[in-house]
Structures are given as C-alpha cells and as structure tokens.
C-alpha cells in the first residue's frame, strides 16, 4: 500500500519536504497566479489595444492609450486630488493616532475601555461610515446633525458635499477616514509604546530630562521609529487605495463631480462604468501602479527600510 512500503514512505513521508511544500503552498500560488498575475498581465496587454466593450481586442494602438490617459485633464486632476489627500491624511492620521496612543498609554484606570472605544470604528465598513456621514451628519439640509448644531448659533445651512468654495467636502472625506482608521494605528503605536523599557525613562529622569516634550522627543519617538515607519507605509498605501468613502460620499446615479475624484474612482468609471473602455482604463491602471511603485521604493529608501541599523 502506498505510504507503508519503502518507496511510498519516501514519496509521501514527512521527510519529503518538497512535496509537502507544494501541497500546502501550491493552491495559494495557483490562486495568486489565476486571480492576480494573469489579470495583471492581461491588463498590461489590454493597455496596448483599443478595447471598448471587450477583453479580447484586436486593434493594436501601441502607446496610444498611455498618451491619451496622460493628456487627459480628468486623469491628471485625479492624481493631484490624490496627492493633496495623501499629503493631508497621512501626517494627520499619524499625529492623531500617536496622540491617542500616548493618552491611552498614560491612562491607568480604564485603559482597556478607552482602547476599545477608539479602536471600535476600525470594525465599521468604509461604505457604511460614508453613508452615515453623507445622510445623517453632513447632509446639506436643516435637519442634518452638523447643520442643526450650527443652526443653534444662527448659522445658515451648509451643503457640505456640494460646496467647493470653501471646499467643505474635504472636511467630510477626511473626518470619516480619520474616524475609521485612527484607532487601528493607535493600537500599533500602543504596542510600540509598551515595548519601550521603563529603564530608559528612569535613566532619562536621573539625567534630568523634563517629562513631557523633552522625553517624548529624545526617548519615546526614537524608540518608536520602526513602528512609525510601518505606520507611514501602511497609511500611504491606504491613501493610494482610497475609493470607498470618496465613491459613496460623492457619486450619484448620474456620475461623479470632477473635484475630489481620486484616480481609482476615475479608472473605475473609465473601465467598468458605462464607458467600458478597458484598454484606456488598463493604461491608467499601469500608470498608477508605476507611480505607486516609485513612491513606495522612494519612501523605503528614505526611511532606510531593511537597513539593519535603521
């Protein structure tokens, strides 16, 4: 019988590491190949063709889709929108989650309670949170929560998502994301803070360091360096993936306004919306992927990621 004879034991026994490696890793590699790399490769292929309403095109256009996408004001505007959003959301979330972590870390009595309270929004979906923000908190009529509160002070009702001067829609987009993700990064910082040896603080106190800013700057922040690098990387990647809250806050049955339109939303409409221009959409996806790759590599170098002394 297989497995009981010498040859079978050699083929299926625990010593045959290669076989077991493929048994366990193979299905996942297959899934990765079929559902990630093949579509990725096909998308790159499509980007060189005129592919309206088809994924098996025949009209080769070379770099035509790329030049069209790069010359398209709507796409380049969406890149600027994303850049503006990232420049704001990354440092803001970083500072807020670090501040929350420092606060919760100092709390002795009900630390678990506060940790849970701040972390809980991370369990909420972006879609649900965006709809609550849009329909209840920041709707533009007099019974929206924000307008009701402002009404107590005699202020006029504000159309939060439709006002471009000043751009109030950013307040809605940013607050929903801060609410959803600050708690998650707070937990990462908390883990980092709890790894710092108390002896360092004692030594600092003996050396005369004043508690507060001086200790934070010279002990806490340097000790949190690896956590901070991970948090910034995750924040940038998340910002690149911004879609759910933008789409659910600002789209309607007839489309999407040109302001606050991140690249993924624009590519969604180009490739998967009624346009069904899969060649052009693929070219945009390749351009975006290249930008993400360049930024990520640049950032890794900036933080000396992988450097043992880093």
């Amino acid at each position, binding site marked *: 019988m297989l497995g009981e004879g010498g040859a079978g034991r050699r083929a299926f026994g625990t010593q045959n590491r290669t076989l077991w490696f493929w048994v366990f890793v193979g299905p996942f590699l297959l899934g990765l190949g079929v559902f990630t790399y093949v579509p990725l490769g096909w998308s790159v292929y499509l980007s060189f063709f005129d592919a*309206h309403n088809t994924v098996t095109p025949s009209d080769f256009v070379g770099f035509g889709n790329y030049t069209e996408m790069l010359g398209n004001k709507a796409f380049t505007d969406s890149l600027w929108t994303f850049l503006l959003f990232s420049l704001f959301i990354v440092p803001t979330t970083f500072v807020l989650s670090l501040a929350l972590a420092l606060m919760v870390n100092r709390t002795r009595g009900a630390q678990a309670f506060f940790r849970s309270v701040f972390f809980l929004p991370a369990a909420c979906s972006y879609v649900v949170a965006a709809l609550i923000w849009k329909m209840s908190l920041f*709707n533009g*009529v007099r019974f929206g929560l924000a307008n009701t509160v402002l009404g107590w002070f005699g202020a006029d009702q504000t159309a939060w*998502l439709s006002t471009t001067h000043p751009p109030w829609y950013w307040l809605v987009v940013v607050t929903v994301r801060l609410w959803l993700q600050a708690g998650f990064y707070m937990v990462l910082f908390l883990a980092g803070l709890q790894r710092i040896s108390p002896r360092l603080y004692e030594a600092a106190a003996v050396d005369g360091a004043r508690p507060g800013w001086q200790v934070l700057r010279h002990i806490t922040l340097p000790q949190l360096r690896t956590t901070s690098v991970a948090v910034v990387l995750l924040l940038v990647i998340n910002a690149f993936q911004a879609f759910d809250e933008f789409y659910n806050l600002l789209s309607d049955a007839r*489309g999407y306004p040109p302001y606050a339109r991140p690249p993924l939303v624009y590519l969604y409409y180009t490739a998967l919306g*009624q346009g069904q221009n899969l060649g052009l959409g693929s070219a945009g996806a390749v351009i975006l992927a290249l930008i993400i790759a360049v930024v990520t590599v640049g950032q890794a170098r900036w933080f000396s990621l992988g450097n043992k002394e880093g």
Partner: protein
Amino acid sequence: MTISRRTVLSTAATAATAALLTACGGNTGRGGGGSGGAGPRLAQWYHQYGETGTEQAVERYAAAYGKAEVTVQWRPGSYDEQTAAALLTESGPDVFEVNGPSLDQIQGKQVVDLTDLFAGVKDDFSPAVLAPKTHDGRIWAVPQVIDTQFLYYRKSLLEDAGVRPPRTLDALVDAAKALTTKKTKGLFLGNDGGAGVLGGTPLHAAGLELVTADGKVGFDDPAAARALGKLHRLYADRSLLLGAPADWSDPSAFVQGLTAMQWSGLWALPVVKKALGDDFGVLPFPADGSGGKPSVPVGAYGAAVSARSEHKQAAKAFVKWLWIEKTDYQEDFALSYGFHIPARLSLAKKAAKLRAGAAADVVRFTTDHGYAQPLLWTPASQTAYQDGLSRVIKDGANPESELRSVVRKVTAELDRVRKKA
C-alpha cells in the same frame, strides 16, 4: 472510530476540489436547453424599480410565456455596470433591460439586431425614444416605456411669494431666488446642482442640440455658454437646494417642503399627488433666448437580446411576445405600478390615467418638446460635458472656455465612433 491524518487530508482535498468545481460551474440562471418541455430556459434581467409590485408583475408576464422557461433576475445596485460587465462573459442574460444600448455595445456586436420584430408596428412606437435605439437603420432594442423629466412647482408657495410659474430661464433664476427662505430653497436640481441630471436640457432650451442630425457637435455656439452661465447664477444666489438626503429622482425634498420647485420625473407623480393633492403644477425646462424653446428630456429602457445568448431566436421571440404583441402587459407595466408613458403611441392615447391633470400636461410637453439623448453622445462625451458643467455651476468657471474644451473632446469622440462604423 479513529481518523487518520491521511483521511483528514484526503477529505480536505476532495472538499476543496468539489468547492473549486462548484465555483467554476456557478448558477448563471441560464439553462443548457429545454426544461420540462417548456422550451429553452431564458434569463431575463431588469434593474430594480422603486415601485411596489413591478417585480411581481414582470415575473407574472414571464410565467405566462409558453414557449420558453423565462427566469427573471431583479438586480439592485449599479445595473448598467453589471450588464456591461456581464455582456463580456458567457454568464450574462439572454434578454435584458438596457438604458441604451450604447453605440459601443452595438458596434462591439454585443446585442442582437431586432429590426425584424418591428414589422408592421414600427410607426406605433414613439419616434423620440425609438431614434436612440436605431443605428444605421437597424433597431437594437424594443422601448418598454417612456420616462420623462420636468419641473414640479408648489402652487401655494409661488402664490405666497407673488411669483408666476417661470416660462423663461431668466424667470426661473429670479423665481428660485424669490422663493428661497430660511427654511425652503427655491429650486432642487439634484445634489450636484444639476450637472448630472440636466445634461443637454439647458442646451435644448437655448435652441441647440448635443449632436446634430449630420453627426456634428451641436452646441458650439455662444447661446450655449449663455444658458449654462445662468445655471451658475442659481448656485451663486444660493437658490439651489444641495445635499438633500434623497436626490432629484425622489420627490421627498419637494413634498417635505425643503424646496419650492424640483426637477424630477414622471414616475414621482403619484407620490407628489398623494402628498400635495392639487397644490402643485408641472412645467418643461424653460426656454432661453430668442431662439430657445421649452425642453423636456425623454428616455426609455429597452428590451435587448445578448449576442452571447445560446438561444438568440428564442430570446427574440420572447421579446416580440412581451414588448410588441402583449399590449395589455405593456399598459399594465407602464401605468399600474409607477407612472410612465407607454412607448406605443396607441396605448399612450387610450390610457385614461394620462388624460387629465398634471399627467395630461406632461404628455403634452413630451409630445411637443420631448428630446432624447442621441446615440452618438458617448459616455466619454457625457463625462467631459458633466465635468465642465459642474465647474461652471459650482466654481463659476468661464462657460466659453469650458465648452471649448468639451467641444474638442466630443469632436474626437464623434471621429472615433465614425471610424468604427
């Protein structure tokens, strides 16, 4: 009983294989052939209607068909995107409702030519909604019902403010301003200020078109910039309701008194009538300038057949039965649940519900001033135009320069689709 490691592994492998095969199979709602002696199985897709009873009605029609087994799929969410994606695969519908089909779907051979179904009845379909379903003399979908949009106004609020129902775009701008109070805005054109829903309506009101009959840009004219500029005045005057919980297609803002006038559709008429009785009136989008005319957009979902269907002839036969022969079902679908104008002129004429009050006014506006979005107006052209209009309305961007950029884009799109023809 002891379970060996080998048993666990082989069971897991069998389960995984079964799961994989099940996933590969999938239930497409489409059978491979005859079933139960009722002919082939056909999958028919509809977008989700808001009106109660519509789903049950279309299921009843499908069940009454004897020559095929028709399964109805009622699909909520982004229906146009769902069908567009499904048409690329083998698992899509045989028969489907489509807000089109688009020119790219026709040129991409994704839908079946239905011209022969119209033999002897073509003249009974409203020309306004049949035109956008026609390309190169062939018809690609059977219009089901006519949906139209217009302006609702609250009579009592206008009387209190001493405002007459506006007949020109300038009068509309002034009326909206006069009707705006601390609690009520003058006009609701959608939460985006009208950029999405109005489309070519203000251009038609100025006597222009999106695309001319000979396939050229129809709004490369100073009158276009003038009309669009007036929409910015509505925004700048703070006369527009923005950020309402329900958008323009829902009459909630109007019946709740959040706005004195609202742009919405015929489907909303029963709700408005129930809430306000006779305290409302309807108007077309008002004319602008000396060459202008009132403007009423019309559209129609049509029944189309997927070119990937395994049973194209059976699907065509079903479409002919339901949307050409069964006039009693067509009338029931148009008027018993929501409120729509039947696509057949003979049905629209005899429908009692359309003969009196606001409904009769709407039918008259639609007949006199109705226009449909042309087939040559591609999604890319629409996006460029909507973006430009949004910048004009909300940012106060210069209408001339915005329109110049839109004209360039639309010209390029018209060249592209002509090349494919």
